[in-house]
């Protein structure tokens, strides 16, 4: 069962439609990537999930029930535009945000202390936010988002502005939270940055959903059966051997080692390819070229909209 589903969501603003019949289903205990260029409608969808705005049409279900105001306490949200009260003390502020999420004082304090210890930031409790560096503030923001153990964690562009150390810290925390039972929805325009941690994805472009599904299924669908081979030996013999069963996309040579990209044709397998070329060259390595999320996005958009591929990558 999914923790959260949105069916045929439509959101219109005065001049444009931000979401046009968008449906997504977020499976329980997964890391769900909501991907798409800036302006595609990701933040509009997320704001609807957080009940910051309401959809003009469509049905939203959370944990088996229609979405209701009290559900906000089971959702943790890290918006793209995020910040803290500069003049407030770190501890006070974290307590305030936790209580707004429905935690009581004692509980909030206990959990906060634990997180502060985990992130090794206990010393900041009494400091004002304006005294903190950006990286420090980001840690506080992350803690306040996950503190109340939400069932669903929504992170909008979570890594923008994070330094690499914090990015890795947050990535590993995300996976840990998933393993403990939470569901995480990540939204980003930087598709490469979340590829490794997403289980499911949905691609959104120009207010419409282009593609969704489990990560491995999507990758399978857009698999191009292209392999990169490194070998030593006769390039001409190698090329001739490929004949009509395989397509040589490109080849290059560097210090006696050749690199070639070959695509399988006519239901040939990798084994067939190796059998064909082995008599001619000495293979050093073989690996499949897996399409990146960016490539998948571009092909998905082109499939859907073959006429206007010019501006399909960004708005």
């Amino acid at each position, binding site marked *: 069962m999914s923790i959260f589903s949105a069916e045929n969501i439509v959101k219109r603003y005065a001049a444009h439609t931000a979401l046009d019949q968008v449906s997504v289903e977020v499976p329980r205990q997964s890391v769900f990537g909501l991907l798409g260029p800036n302006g595609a409608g990701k933040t509009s969808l997320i704001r609807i999930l957080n009940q910051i*705005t309401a959809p003009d049409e469509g049905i939203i279900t959370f944990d088996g029930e229609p979405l209701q105001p009290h559900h906000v306490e089971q959702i943790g949200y890290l918006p793209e535009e*995020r910040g803290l*009260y500069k003049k407030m003390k770190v501890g006070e502020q974290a307590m305030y945000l936790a209580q707004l999420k429905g935690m009581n004082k004692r509980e909030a304090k206990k959990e906060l202390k634990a997180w502060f210890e985990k992130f090794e930031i206990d010393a900041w409790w009494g400091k004002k936010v304006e005294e903190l560096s950006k990286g420090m503030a980001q840690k506080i923001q992350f803690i306040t988002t996950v503190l109340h153990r939400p069932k669903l964690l929504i992170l909008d562009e979570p890594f923008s502005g994070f330094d690499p150390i914090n990015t890795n810290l947050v990535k590993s925390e995300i996976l840990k939270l998933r393993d403990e039972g939470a569901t995480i929805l990540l939204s980003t325009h930087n598709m490469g940055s979340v590829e490794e941690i997403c289980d499911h994805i949905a691609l959104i472009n120009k207010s419409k959903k282009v593609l969704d599904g489990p990560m491995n299924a999507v990758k399978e669908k857009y698999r191009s059966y292209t392999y990169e081979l490194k070998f030593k030996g006769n390039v001409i013999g190698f090329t001739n051997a490929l004949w009509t069963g395989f397509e040589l996309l490109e080849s290059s040579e560097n210090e006696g080692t050749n690199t070639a990209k070959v695509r399988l044709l006519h239901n040939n397998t990798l084994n067939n390819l190796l059998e064909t070329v082995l008599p001619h060259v000495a293979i050093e390595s073989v690996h499949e070229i897996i399409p990146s999320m960016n490539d998948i996005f571009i092909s998905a958009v082109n499939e859907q909209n073959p006429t206007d591929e010019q501006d399909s990558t960004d708005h």
Partner: protein
Amino acid sequence: MNKIALIIRREYASRVKKKSFIIMTILGPILITGLIGLAIWMGLSDSTKHKILVVDETGTEEVMGLFTNELENTSRISFEYTNKDITNEGFEESSYTLLLRLNEKVLTNKAYSLFFKKTPSINVQGYVKSQLEKIIERKNIDDAGMTPDDYYKIKPHITLDLYDIQDTSQKSHNQEIAAIGFGFAILIYMFIFLYGVQVMRGVIEEKTNRIVEVIISSVKPFQLMMGKIVGIALVGLTQFALWIILTMALTAVIQPLLLPDNLDPVALIETNAQLAPDVLAEIQAEKGQEELNYFSELILHRVNWGLLIGMFLFYFLGGYLLYASLFAAVGAAVDSEADTQQFMLPITIPLVFGFLVAQFALQNPEGPSAFWFSIIPFTSPVVMMVRVAMGFDSDTVWQLFLSMGLLIAGFLFTTWLAGKIYRTGILMYGKKVTYKELWKWLFYKG
């Protein structure tokens, strides 16, 4: 704990803990009592000694004899006489502070010229004038062949006492009482501006800090807006209460230093309040204390303080709520305080206008402008205070109820309107918003 209560508490605590709040709370009463004290002290101890040179250029027997040595000296004002003219430069260098020139036409024109180095106070001018009048009067009595006794028998001396027909037992003090109401009107006007702008700043701060979206994922934007407005209202009431307490304490300390015992109005009011009416009347009859007793009687008995303070709180809160939500909407629509100008005008105009009408109402508390603008919600918080001070009777009390009802309806309306703008505005960044845009926001689905 209720979330809106959490927001109110944060808004309240973060403001009353600020240094600026503490400084203003302490400085306010010091400034008020200081200024009043200074004014009283200067008034009482206007210790400038005036030496007035009376120059009689007429040379005529008639005028000369009349004034010479006839103007009475006091401890602070002394007159010296000459019939030699003195140049401006000569006067400048002399030790005289004032120069009174008399010419042959003074008796017919009844105009006198007083030259000064520094403008003399109203008191000094009044004294010189009264001295001259006294002499002319005496001469006229003499010329008419009367005795002064006859003259004073003929000369009418009347006082005009005003009575309100609705309240026949008592003299009317409408003007004075309206002035007290006007004082409250000024307070309301000031507080709406001061704290309305604080609401606006608070909203802009949340927007520029980018905290707002985090908060509204936990609470409704409307709750956040109302929490802020109510929290700041409590800050305002706290400051107001502290000002009153501190001002009273300071006045109690400063008064004995400034005023001689028999002039201490506080003591006077207190003793008067404890005395039976006939004793009071007796004391009032005593010359010299008449003015003060009149004042204390006005303050103590003529003003319906219960109504006035109750209505002050009502109109302060009503007016504040009406305007604060609009200030919040402006804060939400802009990215920085510098952009607020264009949206501030429609808020400022009715407030300032209400203040102007309140001044007219002071002159004519029962005129049509005072009536209408004390009913209309945008101006009523300021204008109505003047009328409230004067009280209502059974025939006019409907006006008060109508005004109160409309004010409640008014702030419900502006809060609803502002809530819609606020909700959309706080999530808009980096966009110059126009009125047309605001209008569209009203119809977005929340």
